[in-house]
């Protein structure tokens, strides 16, 4: 289980990263927590690894009034430990604490997590539920797109060849907003087998409900109000999103949705 040969280049800035990523078969490596295993299993065989973990401009966080922009190379542990500001009333810190194990969190990055696009990954689903924007920088300039546009499916994103995630932009949420995020893991530190996030932000007039870990892109449920008002049960909602699944499988997703909902309304479910 040793990787196939590759060249390695650590870069000091996003600009340098872009330059190296322009060459064919080059791949960015941030924390290496997802790419490392892929390399060792020889499932990924890049000719060049461009290490962006210590890239200054990707490690910073920018606070600008209503929005907080996290550099792509900010680690889960940076968020967990409060070394970077939390755009929410503690939701991100709390979520970070339950990603994988501490050793993984020390290295794993928010940008790497989004780029890898594991359908069960926490940031993939949380950022979708928070309506975050992904900042992309590439050979043809910079662009920003919503999470829904960014995640195309399992391990598939809108990143084009040579492009890099430079950051993720999150709107501030006040204590008036309600939030619940629940996931079901077989073991502490495992990827989720089902997850759900519920956001109700009266100040911004936003309601968003996301089902995650469904082996495809996170599902934003079309009519959150129907569920929040009680017209549709969690089972109904899940049946709409996952009609092909059997009852036993749907039950788990419904349970997560109920848990996230209860948390958003102050319930002490867990």
């Amino acid at each position, binding site marked *: *289980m*040793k*990787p*196939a*040969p590759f060249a390695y280049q650590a870069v000091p800035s996003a600009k340098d990263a872009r330059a190296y990523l322009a060459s064919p078969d080059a791949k960015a490596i941030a924390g290496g927590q997802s790419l490392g*295993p892929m390399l060792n*299993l*020889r499932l990924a065989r890049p000719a060049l690894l461009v290490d962006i973990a210590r890239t200054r401009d990707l490690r910073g966080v920018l606070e600008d009034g209503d929005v907080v922009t996290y550099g792509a190379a900010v680690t889960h542990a940076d968020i967990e430990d409060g070394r970077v500001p939390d755009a929410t009333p503690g939701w991100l810190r709390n979520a970070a604490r339950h990603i994988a194990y501490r050793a993984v969190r020390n290295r794993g990055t928010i940008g790497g997590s989004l780029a890898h696009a594991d359908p069960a990954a926490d940031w993939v689903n949380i950022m979708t539920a928070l309506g975050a924007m992904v900042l992309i920088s590439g050979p043809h300039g910079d662009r920003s797109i919503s999470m829904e546009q960014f995640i195309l499916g399992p391990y598939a994103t809108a990143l084009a060849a040579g492009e890099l995630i430079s950051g993720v932009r999150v709107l501030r949420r006040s204590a008036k907003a309600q939030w619940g995020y629940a996931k*079901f893991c*077989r*073991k*502490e*530190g*495992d*990827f989720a*087998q089902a997850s759900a996030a519920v956001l109700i932000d009266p100040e911004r007039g936003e309601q968003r409900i996301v089902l995650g870990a469904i082996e495809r892109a996170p599902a934003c449920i079309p009519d959150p109000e129907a569920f929040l008002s009680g017209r549709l049960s969690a089972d109904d909602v899940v049946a709409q999103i996952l009609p092909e699944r*059997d*009852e*036993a*499988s749907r*039950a*788990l997703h*419904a*349970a997560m949705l*109920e848990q996230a909902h209860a948390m958003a309304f102050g319930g002490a479910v867990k």
Partner: protein
Amino acid sequence: MHDGNVRRGVGASMLRLEDDRLLRGKARFVADIKMPGMLEVAFVRSPVAHARVRGVGKPAGHEDKVIVSADLKGVSGIRADSGLTGFKSSIEPILAFDKVRFVGEPLAACLAQTRAEAEDIAELVGLDLDTLPAISEMTKACDTDAPLIHESWSENVFLETLVDTNFAAADKADVRISRTLRTARQSMAPIEGRGVVAYWDAHVEQLVVYSSTQMPHIVRNGLAECLGIPQGMIRVIPPDVGGGFGYKGVLLREEVCLAYLAMQLRRPMRWVEDRREQLTGNANCREHHYEITGYANRDGTLVGIDCDAIVDSGAYSLYPFSACLEAAQVASILPGPYKLEAYRCRTRSIASNKPPILPFRGVARTGVCFAIEIMMDALAREIGMDPVAFRLKNLVQPTEMPFTNITNKYFDSGDYPEALGRAAAAVDMQSLQARRQLSTPNKKIGIGFAIYCEQGAHGTSVYHGWGIPMVPGFEQANARFTPDGGLELRVGVQSHGQGLETTLAQVACEILGIDARKVKLVHGDTALTPYSTGTWGSRCMVMAGGAVAAACDTLAGRMKSIAAHLLQTDPSEIILADDKASSGSREISIAEIAKVWYRRPQDLPANMDPAGLEVTQGYKPKKDTGTFSYGAHAAVVEVDTKTGAVEILDYIIVEDGGVLINPMVVDGQIYGGAAQGIGTALYEEMPYDVDGQPLASTPADYRIPGSVEVPRIRLDHMETPSPLTRFGQKGLGEGGAIAPPAAIANAVNDALAEYAVEMLELPITPTRIRESLSRARASS
């Protein structure tokens, strides 16, 4: 024995002497061994479960770095037959050449300066394989259209056995109930995988093999047989070994292959198993299937058991335990500590396209305990009796000890009802009631019990009947004082987590009065230690402990003679304690006695016994049918009927291991075993698809419980001394891993009783629970 105020003899809970080295990362494992000119080996392994091998192509330019079967001149495959009637023999080729029979079977060895380069070459090796249909499900292995794994055989069965003891008597029982039960195939996962370094030592003309093994002397036997060279030409050394559990109780093809290459090429060779090889190529234990019927009377008498058990033994018979030990053992241990008058059990060791089976901690007992204890609960429910009361009525009573059960197992001692009673009493019913009231309607609480016995240190009379390549007999130990008054012990068993460096020192301390910290254990190395079958079957503390005691007894006599001369008294007046020999108020240190013996012999009389301060002594217990330690487990679980999650709220173990040499080490063994048992119960499973492809290739898919998943276990000890052993100790290294699946399954089934759902397949995963509940809802 006392050292200041600290007891360090038998019964002392002293910290382990080896832990300083192990916990500070100073231990040396196979992967830490480096030698000048050493080559790394990567194996090309079969990507398919069953195929005819048309060719293994060496890549151009790398011909000399790729070794295939034809290159292993004069090397025999590994054969481990059982002498039991009807056993069908298989030969494990060192490198496969005509057929491959499971995913992961080695086909070629690639040599390079680094492992990465060796893997680069391995990728280039061309495999021409004609894929054949595979057997991945043992219940289908005997279908008429099933492909034959070994073509000279008539069917895919290594061995079939049948025991029938008065089974006709079951007919008169009031009730009978039947169940189909299943345990999953598991992959033993010691922290350190396997690994081998082999080199030819030209100066002593000897092949030296470092291997992460539990049984170095057995490995030497096997190497000599496969390589066709005298045993004196081979030295096997286990360095520090990071866990075994049975995974390293085997002669490996990799050992034979590296040994041969080191001899031929005269260069050191190293192979270190990686996690992928371990998981996908070596998932090799625990897979049982039972069709079982229990018979009972309404008054609560267990009348009989009828069982048809099959075990998936995989593709080959492994050396030395063979392919049939596990299944055949099912028949002999299924009744356990219960009294019954009618018994029948058929077993079959099935051949499949999976890695060959190895005995894992507890061996067949974990599956068997699950089977019998599920039936005990089901029968109790059927006759409307409390499951603890039903067990108490049918367990062997202390007054009946020693007891020979229906399968002729000789129980040396114990009070089983007491153990179960204590476990039941330890369950805090009040706080459970309170929790029940508070919790949401989808959370269901259940309590489950299991009781088992663990036969340890069983010897010749038990093993010779199997007719396998290894029969344990007499155990030897060597003890010698060093000139500065330290003690060296040499034993052929191998310590790899059991704490023998400490516990055997405690035995020496008990007899010689020496400070246990001055005892150095030399273990495993075939050049330095007496022959032993090694570390397996919970035998070390009884067998090696007995042998060390015997050697120390003799040494004590000799010490006393010297001390008596120096103190001018009679040897019978001498007491050895606290690192000295004393007689009344006169005393002399052990160090001084050793110094006189070795370095100032002029101070001793001419007629002094010349035998000296070095002894090799042998040991065999008074009766070699084994010690019977046992335990009762109680599990309290909460099942979330929405998610299927099982939380262990409380876990109680009452254990009787006889006299405990070091209670702290015993606790550690039980906690560790119980963690593995919880893995069997709730997490560990290597699924295969119909083509025999293993589906859990990383630890993300093959789940092993971590510290968060293992609850705080409450432990209670009983100490019924074994009448058979030196100090009354019993083997107990495996017990913790035996009962958790049974206790937890019974607890889950208790929790789900109102839904008429029974979980009968291990592991009990949330998905299986949700599916069972969903089926129950559909059918109601």
